[in-house]
């Protein structure tokens, strides 16, 4: 995570504190297939109550960086996060480290996509149940849905 990115997130915190929501472009693949980095903009909402399993949040994790990931476990003040599009890895923070909650994203065409509706949450639970097959499903998603090439050309050395 670059200093520039951290600086930008620090800049949007005062607006959240005022009770405003912030529309933030998202990059990266760690929340596929639900949030497409490079395309979607996340609508960040101020956090009004403790976050729960299934919430998508922006948080300062492991004392060193910001992530926009899914809450997979809570225990008292401790929160465990995981990227929906990650095969391995989880992050940890406390409830007070959570900066914002995400309930919808805005697609490039301006359409809003609700990520916390009943059907969206059902979709997430299915996604989590199929975790053993996540790698192949992400590959299928990137090729069939996003139109990415099957193989990336090796860089000339």
């Amino acid at each position, binding site marked *: 995570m670059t200093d520039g990115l951290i*600086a*930008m997130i*620090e*800049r*949007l915190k*005062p*607006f959240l504190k005022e009770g*405003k*929501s*912030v*529309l*933030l*472009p998202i990059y990266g693949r760690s929340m596929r297939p639900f949030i497409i980095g490079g395309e979607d*903009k996340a*609508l960040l909402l101020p956090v009004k109550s403790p976050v729960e399993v299934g919430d998508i949040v922006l948080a300062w994790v492991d004392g060193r960086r910001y992530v926009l990931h899914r809450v997979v476990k809570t225990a008292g003040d401790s929160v465990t996060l995981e990227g929906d599009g990650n095969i391995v890895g989880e992050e940890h923070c406390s409830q007070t480290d959570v900066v914002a909650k995400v309930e919808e994203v805005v697609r490039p065409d301006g359409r809003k996509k609700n990520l916390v509706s009943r059907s969206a949450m059902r979709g997430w639970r299915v996604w989590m149940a199929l975790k053993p097959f996540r790698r192949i499903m992400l590959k299928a998603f990137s090729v069939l849905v996003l139109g990415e090439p099957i193989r990336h050309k090796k860089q000339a050395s």
Partner: protein
Amino acid sequence: MKQKKGFALRTVCGENIIVAEGLETVDFSKVINLNETATFLWKEAEKQGDFSVDSLTEALCKEYEVEKAIAAADIDRIVGEWKEIGIIE
């Protein structure tokens, strides 16, 4: 030229930025950083309402010791950027 509605100058974390700010939502996909000169010019443009490169140049030269030709060239560039980003009309 005029500033478009919905863009606000805010000082956040010691920096001056322009954000597209509605009543409820702030659009961070369109954040513009302003240095000291650009901040002055933006505030001037707001004061003047209907402004031009000339009117801003006059204001800048009144406030800062700078050659008119150099100021005009810089302001022309900055205003050009604002037009491209879409924050003035």
